[in-house]
């Protein structure tokens, strides 16, 4: 039984000659590119979104309006169009080819990073803004009654409380940024999808090349989900028992987040 299984597995692998050390190295490169692209744009996105989400709720229209317009435009147009605009458009900025920037933007990585960051900042700003506006009035009032200054209230009360509320939606955004990063392959970046396309074109093996890529993405998605859930239960200790019960009932499938 096990003999026939191993021989079957052996012949199955032999037929699939695409998984050689060479191709695996290409995939490995792709994984590194995808992960660094996603991590960098999420990190930058998080840092930029914090002040923007505060300004998004500003009392002054001249502060609020431009940010509203920015998130409206970037959430209302496809990421692919934004990426094309930046990647193909950067050449036409005057004198860019002579400037010190050119060696950096000639490669697709930085334009892609810029596009993804701008995109994720738009979504994240709205998520954080929503969470901040939903801060219970009582929390603010209690903090003010304790004599806290405004910066202290934000640091100690508003941000932690809002972050807790934003976490499910933000986790969703993290997963979606990972999935959106596949689009970078359209501007010749060799991420996981780019690697799969390259191997597909070389061996004409669409199933093997793309299913392997899909499995890689699935593995990254599921590990991110696990990490996010750990984070959520860390920030919401009161939910721990409930969550454990719910996990018993449902298969992890239902836990994968919705589109925004």
């Amino acid at each position, binding site marked *: 039984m096990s003999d026939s299984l191993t021989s079957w597995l052996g012949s199955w692998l032999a037929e699939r000659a695409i998984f050689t050390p060479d191709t695996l190295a290409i995939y490995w490169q792709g994984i590194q590119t995808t992960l660094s692209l996603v991590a960098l744009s999420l990190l930058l996105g998080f840092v930029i979104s914090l002040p923007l989400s505060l300004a998004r709720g500003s009392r002054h229209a001249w502060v609020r309006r431009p940010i509203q317009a920015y998130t*409206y435009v970037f959430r209302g147009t496809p990421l*692919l169009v934004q990426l094309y605009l930046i990647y*193909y458009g950067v050449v036409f900025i005057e004198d860019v080819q002579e400037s010190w920037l050119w060696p950096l933007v000639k490669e697709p990585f930085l334009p892609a990073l810029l596009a993804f960051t701008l995109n994720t900042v738009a979504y994240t700003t709205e998520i954080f803004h929503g969470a901040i506006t939903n801060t219970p009035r009582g929390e603010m009032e209690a903090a003010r009654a304790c004599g806290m200054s405004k910066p202290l209230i934000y640091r100690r009360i508003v941000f932690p409380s809002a972050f807790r509320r934003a976490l499910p939606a933000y986790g969703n955004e993290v997963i979606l940024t990972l999935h959106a990063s596949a689009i970078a392959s359209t501007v010749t970046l060799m991420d996981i999808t780019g690697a799969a396309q390259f191997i597909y074109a070389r061996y004409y093996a669409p199933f093997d090349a793309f299913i392997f890529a899909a499995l890689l993405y699935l593995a990254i998605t599921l590990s991110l989900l696990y990490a996010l859930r750990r984070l959520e239960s860390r920030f919401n200790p009161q939910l721990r028992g409930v969550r454990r019960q719910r996990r018993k009932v449902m298969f992890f499938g239902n836990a994968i987040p919705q589109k925004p």
Partner: protein
Amino acid sequence: MLNLHGYGARLLEGALVTVELAALSLVIAVVLGLITASAKLSGRRLPHLIATLYTTVVRGVPDLVLMMLLFFGGQMLMNQLSDLLHARFGLDIFIDINAFVAGVVTIGVIFGAYMGETFRGAIQAVDEGQLEAASACGMSRALIFRRIRFPLMMRHALPGLSNNWLVLLKTTALVSVIGLSDMVRVATQASKATLEPFTFMLFVGAVYLLLTSLSEQVFMHLSRKYNAGFTEERS
């Protein structure tokens, strides 16, 4: 002002392709979503397992990868099928995968998974008493679905549905990558030919913005319609 270098007509055709693609995929996605949701709620193990596998895999993998898998892989399957037909039966038919059909099917399949989750929550939110009352009136199951369950469920499904539709609309841009002449592809070709990427990409972006804004209006109207009689509950 806006000089489209004679690409205006082709861009409009491309925009039409985008809209048709989105509308047809929406139909497939809604049907698949309803099937998935009922499979998950059926309480039977096999349908539940299949539906869960479907939603997990589709929502765990990027749209673009699935699209390439189905498009390139589907073409290869079709080639093998026509080879087989030729070898076995001497039939000489070549089946070419139409990029439009492939796009509609892929986007439909992808968003069916998201719709499934939306509808599952919405179906569960329908008051049991209403359904009992309907069956007490002697309505058949199909009639109950059409007259009672569906209209009541839509109220809860609409926010998710509207989100999914907006994302779907933007996802159609990806079909330009697998060779369908939608608005984005025309704009890419035009930018390369005229060396004016800003003009064309900004134009396409504006059209998408227009489409999403219009959709928001439609959904606002629909939500007013399905929330009739529930106005107190709306905040």
